[in-house]
């Protein structure tokens, strides 16, 4: 197997040389088993940590979601009662609607902005490219909570610098975070500002994977800049786009920090999201069973949306081939 691979690749791309097979055992079967065993040994510490801190909490949360657990004392088995509550409680339904609104505001904006800036920064004619790349990536390094506090100060109606500047220009934006209509766009804006740099870097990496020969061929065929973007860049970027979209969507469904810091779910519930409800149910009301059920519903929704996206983009990629 490995020898045929070796021959094939060396024939097609002469610059690439596969590394020599490890070990060099006479009997490949024994070597393979030994290698597997060895690999397992190296992986074991990580697997143990993963099992203890990821798999085990997930399994116990699933069990808790069928109980009325509070975190201490005895717990009672309540069956699907917690799950039934999720679909009937108006507070939870409000949070689900808000989360959907947040995802609609955040995901396309962040991804489109990241793609546009990646295309711009990928152009070799642009001066100071390195500087711009770093500068635009910078917000991603800051903790989301810190960014949220800073933005909340900037737009504070009484002490905010941004409000002061806009006020001198005659623009009054009022108390944005207390406005039932503007509060959600405001927190989504901060999240976009904070994270588009990360998606941009992923897009940049994807753009650099596209062979220049494709563009040259397209140019020869008479394709203009838009046509080249439409027929070369987009299909070649579909994997990257799928990844970024799924990533951004998961981030949107898990929105918490910036909302907790900036509005605390207010004004009167207009920015309350599902994760905020999980936190409130678990830590404020000590209703751990319900919080676990809510977590599992969120997990299921996230998985479903990711699978849909994956299938959609996977299909497009196959069609593009």
């Amino acid at each position, binding site marked *: 197997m490995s020898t045929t691979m070796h021959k094939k690749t060396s024939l097609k791309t002469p610059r690439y040389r596969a590394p020599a097979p490890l070990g060099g055992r006479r009997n490949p079967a024994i070597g393979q088993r030994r290698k597997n065993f*060895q690999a397992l040994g190296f992986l074991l510490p990580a697997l143990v940590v993963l099992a203890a801190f990821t798999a085990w909490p997930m399994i116990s949360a699933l069990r808790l979601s069928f109980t009325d657990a509070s975190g201490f004392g005895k717990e009672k088995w309540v069956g699907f009662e917690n799950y039934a509550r999720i679909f009937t409680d108006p507070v939870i339904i409000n949070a689900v609607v808000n989360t959907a609104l947040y995802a609609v505001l955040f995901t396309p904006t962040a991804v489109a902005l990241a793609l546009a800036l990646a295309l711009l920064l990928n152009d070799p004619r642009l001066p100071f490219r390195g500087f711009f790349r770093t500068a635009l990536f910078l917000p991603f390094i800051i903790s989301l909570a810190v960014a949220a506090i800073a933005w909340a100060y900037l737009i504070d*109606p*009484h*002490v905010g610098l941004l409000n002061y500047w806009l006020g001198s220009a005659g623009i009054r934006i009022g108390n944005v975070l*207390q406005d039932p209509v503007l509060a959600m766009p405001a927190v989504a804006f901060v999240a976009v500002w904070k994270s588009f740099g990360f998606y941009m870097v992923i897009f940049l990496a994807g753009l650099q994977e596209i062979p220049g020969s494709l563009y040259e061929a397209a140019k020869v065929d008479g394709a203009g800049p838009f046509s080249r973007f439409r027929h070369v860049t987009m299909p070649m970027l579909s994997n990257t786009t799928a990844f970024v979209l799924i990533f951004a969507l998961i981030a949107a469904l898990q929105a918490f920090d910036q909302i907790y810091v900036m509005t605390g779910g207010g004004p009167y519930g207009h920015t309350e999201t599902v994760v905020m409800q999980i936190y409130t149910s678990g*830590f404020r009301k000590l209703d751990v069973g319900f919080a676990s059920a809510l977590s599992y519903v969120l997990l299921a929704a996230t998985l479903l949306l990711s699978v849909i996206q994956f299938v959609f983009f996977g299909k497009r990629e196959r069609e593009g081939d």
Partner: protein
Amino acid sequence: MNRSLTILTAVAAASLALTSCSGTGAGQANKEGSKAELTFWHGYTEADGKVLNKIVEDFNASQGDVSIKVQTNPWSVIDDTLLPALSSGNGPDIVAMPAERLPVYADKGAFVELDDFYKDPASNLDKLIPAAADMETVNGHKYGVPSGFVPLAMFYNKALFAKAGMTAPPATWEEWIAAAKKLTVDENNDGTPEQFGLGLPDHATVANGVWPSLFYGNGGDIVRDGKAVVDSPENAETLQTWVEAIRNDKISPSGLDGIAGDKLFSSGKAAMYLGGPWMSSIAAESKIDYGIAAVPAGPEAQAASAIGISMGITSQKDEAKTAAAQKFFTYFLQKETATAWSLGSGWPPLRSDIPAADVAANPVVEALTKQSEFGRPLLPGVVNSTDVLTAVDKLTQRAVAGENIQDLLRETQTSVQKILDTK
């Protein structure tokens, strides 16, 4: 040889990680006959914390049976870490928390029931201010001992009052609104005053006591005998009066929350503000010459919602520890200790037999002690008080934002009753 060694090390490391994980669950057993060692979590982080820690030290020195170790964390950290700590068996034996949080934990069985302790004549608990003791009742039983009880008071900026030609703080609602109008200054006439007569937060205030205080003043309430009483003509009138003052006369900014309200007063942009004892240190730090007065009397009553801190004994521990914790509470409520605690913390005395004159050494405490009689615990014993207060918060925010008051009251009445019914 080499390879099997690496595997061995890996396995060893893994089993080590496993054992260190499982080690956390085991609690420390208390040996029979030895000294009871208790841990005490509280969130008094300022000067009050030093006084409380001194009281604990003195208690430890006063006898040989019990030794209490104090762990200080901000209130919010205690609230966030108590649940995981208790469920892993590493929680504190005594914990102090904002009084409105006690029913949530008590209802889930996190605290030892203290009915017998309250009946014990040696416990000093019969000397408590009755309203403070009411705060500790959940489902008809006592679950905590108060370490603080104070009605909201009005803090006013003396310099701004002098500038407007006023000396005395208002005593009734009519005077209050008139004073607030007079103290509201819009120099450039742009519709946004530079100085507000009053900081009246419409949501997320400390213990959510501001609007309930106003409701009481006009004879209204939120919950009475386990029933929602939000939708009443009294409450409608109260909301009408204050929403008008905020929206039309701009006496206070709308959409204000507790933290922004504190800032508004401490930056000299609000002439009057409702708050607790901590406002005096906030005002002093910002060099504001302030006075303290009672919340002005409403048409029906002079009343203010009270803020409290409760101490509970967590039910994870054995009886010896419970007895030891009760011993500390008895010491804490002795007349001498209670007086020292009041003077040091800035909160009025918890015992009704300590008059204002006894705490005159601290003028803030003296002023607040005179108002103790107006204090009403907020939603005592209502287990889902968090949800009820959220509903009230929504009501006041939407009213101040200009929605129809009658509709809002009807809607809130339904949702509060539903919250009360779920438990």
